[in-house]
């Protein structure tokens, strides 16, 4: 953990989650913040406020920092964006405010056509998280897979801390759910490591090989 702390170069990272109601964007944000906190950082997670309606676009935010986080504002200039549903790309400006060099973790089985091509300063991680979720969790839930992937590509949280967060946060849902989600985190982490900088087609092929 201490070495992790060192690895955070800036005082504050901001992550924005996009999803649809019911996909667990808020939960994912909470898991990420919990993991960071477990790693010894200050962290904060909260949803874009509003009523939670299944299927409607939702946002959630995470801040991870070395000093206590005081502001409670929404995240406008994220360091990373996690997109749980590629269909959102069509309707929402998902990349707004994303800092240069920012990370996009996208849940998609194929490279979407409408990825913003104006920004060439971004790192895209595209992985079929729903499909992995389906396989591991029995339901197409992309959350923990995407978190694993984010951890893999950013170093902002440790895999162990994520697993801890999953264990604690989902404890109420039973051991099987916890175990499966830990698997999902690991799988996302593994996939993202393998895919780092790898193009979509390769990803597709890689997945096929499995």
């Amino acid at each position: 953990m201490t070495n992790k702390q060192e690895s955070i170069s800036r005082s504050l990272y901001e992550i924005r989650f996009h999803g649809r109601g019911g996909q667990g964007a808020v939960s994912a944000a909470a898991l990420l913040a919990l993991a960071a906190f477990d790693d010894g950082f200050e962290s904060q997670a909260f949803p874009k406020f509003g009523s939670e309606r299944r299927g409607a676009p939702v946002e959630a935010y995470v801040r991870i920092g070395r000093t206590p986080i005081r502001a409670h504002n929404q995240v406008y200039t994220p360091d990373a964006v996690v997109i749980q549903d590629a269909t959102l790309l069509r309707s929402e400006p998902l990349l707004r405010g994303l800092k240069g060099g920012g990370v996009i973790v996208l849940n998609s089985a194929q490279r979407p056509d409408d990825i913003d091509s104006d920004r060439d300063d971004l790192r895209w991680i595209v992985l079929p998280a729903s499909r992995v979720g389906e396989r591991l969790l029995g339901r197409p839930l992309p959350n923990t897979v995407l978190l694993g992937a984010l951890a893999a590509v950013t170093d902002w949280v440790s895999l162990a801390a994520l697993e801890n967060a999953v264990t604690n946060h989902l404890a109420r849902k039973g051991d099987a759910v916890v175990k499966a989600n830990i698997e999902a985190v690991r799988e996302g982490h593994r996939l993202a490591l393998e895919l780092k900088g790898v193009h979509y087609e390769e990803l597709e092929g890689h997945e096929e090989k499995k």
Partner: protein
Amino acid sequence: MRKLLEGSQAVAEAVRLCRPQVVAAYPITPQTHIIERLAQHVADGELEAEFINAESEFGAASIVQGAVAAGVRAFTATASQGLLLMTEVLHNIAGMRLPVVMVCANRAVSAPINIFNDHQDSMALRDSGWIQLYAESNQEAADSVIQAYRIAEACELPVMVCMDGFYLTHSFEPVELPTQGAVDEFLPPFHFARTLNPATPMTLGGGSEPDNYQEYRVLQHEAMENSRAVIEAFDADFGTQFGRSWGGLLDGYRLEGAQTVVLGTGSLMGAVRDVVDRLCDQGRAVGALRLRCLRPFPARELVGRLGSAQRIIVLEKALSVGAGGIIAAELRAALQQAGITTPVESVIGGLGGRDLTPDVIEAVVRNAGPDEAGVSCRFAPQVAVHHEAHEEHEE
């Protein structure tokens, strides 16, 4: 141990540690997580209390009123329309001097309907006779609940702990939860002198006449005035025992030598602190003062802290429609009474959940307000300085 907790959960845990025996509530966004968590605690046997699902906020307030009158510590929470629906009972609880504690998850009021945060709901109740504490963080919200019970029971005044809806209620933040033992040490067992009891029958809530109603109010007012010292003392006590305190009535930030002071309340003060840091780094003498306690209104204390400022900006998430900023008006009165002529700029912002971003706050501080007489307040500019820039960029 510090934990990352949702604000609602932090407050629920704090409530649990205070061992209320009756919890009654009616769900309303954004208060729901608090009562859901408490319901779970009761269901799990972690809180030995009657959890009563009231049929309305009006009922919920009434239930805790009855419970406290019948001799137990009680809790309720609400927001917005729910708080307004409670209004009648809240005045009544205060008038009967019942030590009730509630949490208001601050939210805008209708119309138009809006579930997001501002302070219009609790501000509307500022004259109800309740002590009002506004929390800046989840930690403070939780700690304030614990303090609130001790204040309420010592002063025989109800206490409303206000926490910003969503900004706090739905945010996960690190929170240090005290141990049960420590809370038990801080908070004596519940005692209320006028408990309903057949062994010592008393009549509570009886009628009054023109020749004594005012005296009831005078007593209530005196109790409020006296509660200032109690709030300060218990916060200090809390600091001694738990290693953190919240400034009692007022919480200053970089006030030393500050020529411009931003006065505000609630969670927005976190961003204000960031802005103050930013501006100080740029060499500006800016400080912040957080009004933790709106009632009793710490007029003397405010004068003491703001006396040397040259410019005072009051940033509020509530509007007295047709009058302007509420805190600003009260501050103006306090300063005027103290013979201080520093202008007070009243800025209203963040209504209905609009985010008062650091940039907006900075803009408010940088841009001087209108100095024409008769202008009661101005409104903070729309957020999204960055937002718009990037949208343009993306297109």
